[in-house]
């Protein structure tokens, strides 16, 4: 409570420091011959004063937030009963935990121990008085550092350079957060996957033909030995991605050719954004469509010609996934087709080529690297897609190339491995990280290839 009040005061002080600094810079400049004699703009001086006021406060505040539990805990330790201090490290930790829980207002794990309750009360009162002291320290620091800077404002102070430098540091810090989070995620997946490979050897995972991740919880359970051969999953993923590509590449590419080469410019101007909106439909909606409409339709169709089609089939999931990525393929391909210089089309038409010959022999080959890049990006999206497959393709890891059977994919398995209550160090859960690592590696490769191909295409025409 006291801290939110403190934050408000810090902001108010910062704002007034800004105005004071600006006013002071203007006043100083007027004594020495106008605004031009100032090294920086008055607002730079204001910003510098405000930063000088707020930054130390925030730093002290942050440090205290980190240090508070440690300092307070060591202070109450002295007052705990002697027999508690003699407890083993583990049990003592539990006592401290109880105290902290009580401070936070939670119910206790054991019955109310009077010593614990007393300690908690002491902790709370210490916390309150420490909060007051720290607030005072912060306010004093703010005033002192703001006053120091304020008094040093003169026409030679290089306020602009300092402020710009601080801004640069802030910007670098923000981008570092983005980069380090990514690295952190990758590393954590990597380490968990390594833990998995310590239990299940890498070659069993990559080359094994059976996937049944249920491990026995009790030793006497039957039939749940756990098998982590990922080949059926990779095959299922590939199968669905191939079906999706077979749908998306022809339709996407041909519609791109229509929009770029045949359609009236006005039609193109409306149709293209519309098609891009398709890419914004949440995949769960496609999943619905796949599970409730397409899959039953395919099953009925199969039955009518006496084919055995399971109600969840790779075909249904692949078809709908293909429809989902059509906008990617066609929008990216349309961009590169449209970028092919008109002079090439003219050159071909002037030789007596028909429009289709021109498209087929000149425009598409010229745009091919860009088209391939777009397709690869779409593939990596298809492989990473989850919802449609969860809903339409099923969960059982069949090792089959028959699109009418139910298969499963990497993403679906990750989901099923992690939902529900899980031990976080069983091979079953860790397998999810191993699968995630493989998926990450695969899409990374595809993206790198796609980006390289697209770049190469750009160089050709720019």
């Amino acid at each position: 409570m006291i801290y939110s009040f403190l934050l408000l005061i810090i902001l108010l002080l910062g704002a007034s420091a800004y105005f004071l600094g600006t006013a002071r810079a203007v006043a100083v400049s007027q004594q020495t011959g106008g605004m031009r004699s100032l090294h920086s703009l008055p607002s730079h001086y204001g910003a510098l004063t405000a930063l000088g006021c707020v930054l130390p406060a925030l730093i002290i505040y942050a440090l205290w937030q980190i240090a508070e539990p440690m300092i307070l805990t060591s202070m109450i330790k002295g007052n705990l009963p002697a027999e508690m201090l003699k407890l083993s490290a583990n049990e003592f930790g539990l006592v401290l935990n109880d105290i902290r829980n009580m401070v936070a207002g939670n119910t206790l794990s054991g019955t109310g121990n009077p010593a614990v309750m007393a300690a908690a009360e002491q902790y709370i009162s210490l916390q309150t008085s420490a909060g007051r002291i720290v607030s005072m320290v912060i306010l004093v620091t703010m005033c002192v550092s703001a006053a120091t800077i304020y008094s040093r404002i003169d026409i030679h102070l290089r306020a602009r350079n300092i402020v710009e430098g601080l801004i640069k540091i802030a910007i670098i810090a923000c981008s570092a957060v983005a980069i380090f989070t990514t690295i952190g995620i990758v590393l954590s997946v990597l380490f968990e996957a390594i833990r998995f490979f310590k239990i299940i050897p890498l070659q069993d995972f990559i080359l094994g033909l059976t996937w049944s991740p249920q491990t026995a919880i009790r030793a006497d359970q039957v039939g749940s030995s756990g098998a982590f051969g990922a080949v059926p999953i990779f095959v299922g993923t590939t199968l669905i991605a191939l079906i999706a590509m077979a749908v998306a590449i022809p339709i996407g590419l041909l519609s791109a050719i229509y929009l770029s080469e045949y359609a009236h410019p006005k039609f193109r101007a409306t149709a293209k954004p519309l098609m891009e909106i398709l890419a914004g439909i949440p995949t769960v909606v496609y999943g619905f469509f796949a599970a409730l409409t397409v899959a039953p339709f395919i099953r009925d169709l199969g039955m009518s010609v006496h084919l055995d089609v399971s109600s969840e089939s790779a075909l249904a999931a692949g078809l709908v996934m293909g429809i989902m990525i059509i906008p990617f393929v066609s929008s990216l391909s349309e961009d590169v087709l449209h970028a092919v210089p008109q002079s090439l089309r003219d050159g071909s038409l002037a030789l007596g080529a028909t429009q289709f010959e021109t498209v087929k022999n000149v425009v598409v080959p010229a745009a091919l690297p860009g088209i391939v890049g777009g397709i690869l990006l779409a593939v990596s999206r298809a492989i990473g897609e989850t919802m449609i497959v969860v809903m339409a393709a099923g969960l059982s890891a069949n090792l089959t190339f028959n699109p009418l059977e139910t298969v499963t994919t990497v993403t679906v398995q990750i989901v099923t491995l992690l939902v529900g209550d899980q031990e976080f160090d069983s091979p079953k859960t860790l397998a999810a990280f191993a699968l995630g690592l493989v998926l990450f590696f695969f899409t990374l490769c595809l993206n790198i290839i796609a980006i390289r191909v697209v770049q190469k295409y750009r160089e050709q025409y720019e």
Partner: protein
Amino acid sequence: MELTSHLASQSFPTLPTYDFAASLDKTETQAARQTVGNPFLENPRMTCRDVAVFYGEKEAIRGINIDVGCNEVLAMIGPSGCGKSTLLRCLNRMNDTVPGCRVEGEICLDGENIYDPSVDVVPLRARVGMVFQKPNPFPKSIFDNVAYGPKIHGFTTDKAELDNIVETSLIKAGLWEEVKDRLQEPGTGLSGGQQQRLCIARAIAVSPEVILMDEPCSALDPIATAKIEELIAELREQFSIVIVTHAMQQASRVSQRTAYFHLGDLIEVGPTERIFTNPRHRLTEDYITGRFG
């Protein structure tokens, strides 16, 4: 005189009123509409009669009468925007691809109106080839660039014969010696002048009767330009050539006849030498003496 009677025998449609020359000289408004010099030939390859082209509502050229002879180079000169490219693009119906472009009048190739609804543009463009201002080789190999036309027109399915066509075309375009060892390399890797000669070879490969060139040297350096001019002189033996150019020196070096255009009108036509030494129309004279344009 004889020329005027010839012109009078043609039926000229009443032209819409416009005063393009008003800003230059009021007294010339009348004369500027009629072409000075004889635009007609004995045995023409192509003939244009009363050709007018509109881009939407805007009239780009009007009342153009001119013939293109066999085995001659006809140069079209005039200030920018006067409609040279527009007329040139009418000759192989490349204007068909421009939305909103409408062509009136009659343009004949060997006596047949190319704007007749029964005429198919595909064989027409094989008979009237075109070379553009900026070299535009396809991003294919040198060989495939030249073989492109013969392949789409199905001239031959025989590999040896195709090789032969490619070789002769490259020889005629004066490029063979430079590229014979690297036919499989991309045409886009050649220098600007070589690319333009590749485009000429590409046009020659379909054995056209007429070759249209729209400022073919404006993107090239003087040495490459000289090579192309030499080439044009050789090609005249076999083809009719219509060349649009900004460089009057070039027109006088390569062409037998010159046509001067001004704001959508054909002002004067005549033998190149006569046009450059003794222009009859004031606008032509102003242009070739560099007073404007």
